[in-house]
């Protein structure tokens, strides 16, 4: 049954309350005597007045309108919406972790510091780096931290001519945004016909003005760049550094290490690859790892193991770029990552990556017939298809995405990467069974068939959801996001 839920404000009735407060049994205070006048509001706040049960029903109903990894398949490419074991949630909620206070003295937080120290070491081993900071709050924040480290390194060498950062055209938008925020000019290099970096163009762009190259490998097409060591060599030869965007680490975790490929700095998205649910706005964590020569520039404090075996927060780091976040990190995310890594172990991490790659290649091999596959080669944890072969029916990727909603799936990422027209980017993740993948593939095949036989069914989708197509244009041009009491 399709029932739209009214806003909680629309369910409000004057004077109705959720709780009955007892009579005041202490002397009343005059607010105007306690607070300066400019802090006092002149009008009553417009808050909804509802009973407890109505509030509970409202939010419970809203929660059932949502689609999450716990309710269904969620192949949102580039985002790694994988299932995260609930045991890691339980561990992050252990009272000893939850009740920690960041101002507690070190002798009372040895367990937490040890966890952080060991996680730093584990992430360094997984990525082939020498030192890690856990501070950054998410992926883009990690990138920013990494590029500020690069900048500090060049400045420390008194090399002022480095004004550019090279970014491939397949990059996540956060890469050029990060470099621009750090004050660099962006030089974009095109992809070659195999979807990797065009080496000739890279050689042309590489000169002594280059501070760094930012690269995701596998890239946003889900393809591993086999030329990676040559790419790193070209940049190193002109004195630039090579930065690894770890957004796609889900394909290589335990199998290949950015440090071995020639990268100098890397960030990981713990909330994608290392078991923290995401998509709800956080918190995430984007630790940054670097090679030894960049370690002095890492943010401070760093967790350090002292000679007596005790752990401490090391602030004595004169070359550090400083703090990038209040306190120490998104600590509960670190606990989940630690639990995930230790739970799976080296072999388990490897298997997770292998399964992610296997699942993606299985779906790709089934879907390349009913759809168009722009780069036909073995993929990593995700791949990009398009409905180019169905173009004559006037159908767009958006229509296919909407039709998938009717079958209970969260659509894949659409219209990204930008270098593929009408892109549809599918990342099944490692936790899905063969049966789930087969059902999804059958649905995709069926939708391609529907396009041929009844294209309007697809173009007007979704039909079974609570609301059909929303006016995205009006929402973007004239956003109306604040409730106001109608006069």
């Amino acid at each position, binding site marked *: 049954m399709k029932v739209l839920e009214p806003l909680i404000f629309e369910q409000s009735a004057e004077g109705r309350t959720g709780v009955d407060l007892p009579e005041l049994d202490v002397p009343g205070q005059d607010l105007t005597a306690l607070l300066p006048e400019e802090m006092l509001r002149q009008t009553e706040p417009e808050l909804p007045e509802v009973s407890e049960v109505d509030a509970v029903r409202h939010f419970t109903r809203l929660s059932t309108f949502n689609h999450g990894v716990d309710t269904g398949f969620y192949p949102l490419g580039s985002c790694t919406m994988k299932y995260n074991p609930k045991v890691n949630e339980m561990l992050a909620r252990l009272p000893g972790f939850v009740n920690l206070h960041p101002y507690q003295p070190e002798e009372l937080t040895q367990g937490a510091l040890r966890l952080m120290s060991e996680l730093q070491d584990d992430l360094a081993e997984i990525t082939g780096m020498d030192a890690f900071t856990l501070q950054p709050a998410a992926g883009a924040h990690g990138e920013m931290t990494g590029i500020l480290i690069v900048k500090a390194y060049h400045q420390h060498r008194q090399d002022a001519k480095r004004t550019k950062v090279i970014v491939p055209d397949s990059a996540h*938008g956060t890469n050029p945004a990060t470099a621009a925020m750090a004050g660099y000019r962006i030089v974009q290099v095109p992809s070659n016909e195999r979807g990797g970096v065009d080496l000739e163009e890279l050689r042309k762009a590489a000169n002594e003005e280059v501070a760094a190259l930012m690269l995701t490998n596998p890239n946003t097409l889900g393809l591993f760049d086999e030329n990676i060591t040559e790419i790193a060599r070209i940049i190193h030869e002109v004195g630039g550094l090579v930065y690894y965007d770890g957004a796609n680490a889900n394909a290589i975790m335990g199998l290949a290490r950015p440090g071995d490929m020639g990268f100098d700095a890397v960030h990981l998205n713990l909330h994608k690859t290392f078991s923290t649910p995401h998509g709800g706005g956080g918190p995430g964590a984007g630790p940054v790892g670097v090679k030894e020569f960049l370690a002095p520039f890492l943010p401070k404090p760093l967790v350090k193991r002292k000679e007596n075996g005790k752990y401490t927060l090391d602030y004595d780091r004169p070359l550090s770029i400083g703090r990038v976040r209040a306190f120490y990190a998104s600590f509960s995310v670190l606990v989940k990552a630690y639990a995930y890594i230790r739970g799976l172990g080296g072999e388990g991490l490897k298997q997770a990556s292998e399964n992610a790659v296997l699942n993606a290649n299985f779906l790709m091999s089934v879907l390349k017939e009913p759809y168009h596959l722009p780069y036909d080669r073995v993929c990593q944890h995700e791949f990009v298809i398009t409905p180019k072969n169905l173009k004559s029916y006037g159908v767009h990727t958006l229509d296919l995405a909407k039709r998938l909603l009717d079958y209970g799936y969260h659509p894949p990422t*659409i*219209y*990204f990467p*930008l270098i593929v*027209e009408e892109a549809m980017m599918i990342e099944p993740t490692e936790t899905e069974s063969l049966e789930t993948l087969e059902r999804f593939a059958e649905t995709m095949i069926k939708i391609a068939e529907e396009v041929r036989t009844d294209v309007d069914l697809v173009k007007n989708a979704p039909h079974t959801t609570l609301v059909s197509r929303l006016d*995205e*244009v009006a929402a*973007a*041009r004239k956003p109306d996001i604040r409730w106001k009491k109608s006069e």
Partner: protein
Amino acid sequence: MTNPVELKYSKDHDWAKVEGKVVTLGITDHAQESLGDVVFVELPAVGDKIAAGESYGTVESVKAVSDIVAAVSGTVVAVNEGVVDAPDTLNNDPYGEGWLVRVEADDLKPLDNLLNVQQYEALLAEEEH
């Protein structure tokens, strides 16, 4: 929509119209078609310098945010505020009301690298395959 013969076109789907030293810049019909409904346009201010081959603004659609690349270097002498206020103008009339900026060019030479309408349409046909 037909691509006007009097314009010059870039491989990035931008167009340029030359009138003396003043060059009007915009994006092509194919560009607006691929972008989908445009919701936001960001342009430089009058007096700003722009450089050939570099981004001078952005166009945001419901699908993506794209850079607009300048075909010439020069000083911005006029900005189409109409398209900033009503971004759908870009979708409806990319070659007319949807022009973006007018630039007094430092040098008209870079325009020689642009395509004429036949070359541009050949490029579009090639991209189809």
